[in-house]
């Protein structure tokens, strides 16, 4: 694999952010309700990582730099990790580790159901993200990983149902997500690919990175 420094930097950045949040919670820098702050930040962190993962293909079409694709699996797995931490923080700080409460929430709350479905989608992609699964699933692998688009929709809906009155931040995420989807329309993705300078990177080669993730 190329670009070891780039890949290492992405790894450290994604690792450092939740560690820093944990440190802030430890020193009481997150206010009187640090658990809720962690739940919110981890959830939004997972959403941002999902958007970043989905931005890699358009970035690669436009710049033909191979480094983008090389962090795709990593960012996807970071997104899943943040989502797991988000879920754990919710179980611990919001439900107080009460299992019976979780059962009720799962049955009664649409936003919890939607969030759980999004997490299951991420889980499916995470456990099939290894080389063995890619070989095993063959053509089906790419098809399977198209559920990422569904996960994005579910995650945005999940967040929309939590917002109380100010939807500015949600609109920002929604716009970014919508833009990344539009860029996948053949009309726009072909234009992006034409931005590439030089003869390297024929349309055929570009096709194997799109629209897998």
């Amino acid at each position, binding site marked *: 694999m190329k670009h070891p420094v780039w890949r290492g930097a992405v790894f450290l950045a994604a690792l450092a952010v939740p560690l820093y949040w944990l440190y802030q*919670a430890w*020193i009481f820098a997150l206010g*009187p*309700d*640090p658990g809720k702050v962690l739940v919110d930040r981890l959830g939004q962190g997972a959403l941002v990582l999902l958007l970043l993962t989905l931005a890699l293909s358009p970035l690669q079409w436009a710049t033909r730099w191979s480094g983008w694709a090389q962090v795709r699996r990593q960012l996807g797995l970071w997104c899943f990790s943040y989502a797991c931490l988000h879920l754990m923080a919710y179980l611990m700080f*919001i439900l107080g*580790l*009460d299992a019976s409460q979780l059962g009720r929430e799962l049955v009664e709350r649409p936003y919890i159901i939607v969030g759980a479905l999004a997490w299951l989608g991420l889980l499916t992609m995470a456990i099939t993200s290894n080389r063995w699964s890619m070989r095993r699933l063959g053509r089906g692998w790419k098809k399977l990983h198209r559920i990422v688009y569904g996960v994005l929709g579910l995650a945005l809906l999940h967040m929309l149902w939590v917002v*109380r009155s100010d939807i500015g931040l949600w609109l920002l995420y929604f716009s970014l997500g919508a833009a990344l989807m539009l860029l996948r329309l053949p009309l726009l993705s072909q234009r992006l690919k034409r931005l590439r300078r030089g003869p390297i990177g024929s349309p055929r080669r570009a096709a194997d990175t799109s629209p897998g993730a």
Partner: protein
Amino acid sequence: MLIRLPNASRCLPSEITPEPVYLSRRRFMAAAAAGVAGSALPGLARARDAASPYDVPAPDDQPAWFTDKLPQAQWKAVDVRGEAITPFQDATHYNNFYEFGPDKGDPADHASAMPTEPWSVVIEGAVAKPGTYSLEDLVQPHRLEERIYRLRCVEAWSMVIPWLGFPLGKLIERAEPTAGAKYVAFQTAQLPEAMPALRSRFSLIDWPYREGLRMDEAMHPLTLMAVGMYGRVLEPQNGAPLRLVVPWKYGFKSIKSIVRISLVEQQPYTTWQDLAPQEYGFYANVNPQVDHPRWSQARERRLPTNLFSTNVRDTLMFNGYADEVASLYQGMDLRRYY
């Protein structure tokens, strides 16, 4: 008016965690984590403020209408049994005051731009003595009482706060309500220069913020007009200079920075009910059996929490004030009138 409380809700002052003990622990943890544990010690030697029983230094520029009333204040007129008072720092830095922004820290960051002096309140509608009253005139006739109340937010967090104020009922009596007074409507100041959300394009709220009570709720002795907390004048983010406190209802009913009180015949417009009627009702009584459509109201996080203590506890019917207020709602279907 004498408020009769059952023995169960009486509290020994010794049961409240003293604020300096709590704060010094926080400071110690912070300092230890930063590797400078020695700096924790000055925090213990905090100066006591003679005018109040709290170790929160009062600002130097407290208005005379407030300081003149303090010596006669009746401390702990109502108390909460066995539940620690929320630290002042948390009660003043974790607020919902959407005029100043949607985040809990926004009010503390921005509300100081709100001019609270001079302040006047319009009292109008079905009263014999309508008019525009200065804050001084409104407070002057009343003895300040300290009421230590639970505050339960509809978002499922809660605090315990020592308010200073006087019963709303006494204020209304002075205005001499007439036969048409069935409800009381309140309105918050509308100051776009000082309130960022009033200039925002993304806010869903139709300003000014408005709230209301049924007449018997407004006249109930627990219903408080607060002008102070923790033995000092209200901070702007807590609704200075005059706010409502209705301890058995979700926090959004306790409207802040009031400029208008109208006694009316019809049930008045209320902000959150208008914004999402299927989620927020006019009554908004704390009720663990009636969930918010998006989240459970059965339990609450008593703030402050930390990584090791999530402080999740059961929510009490009418926020623990059922003995005093349940009779107001006798025969009402509380699932329908939420």
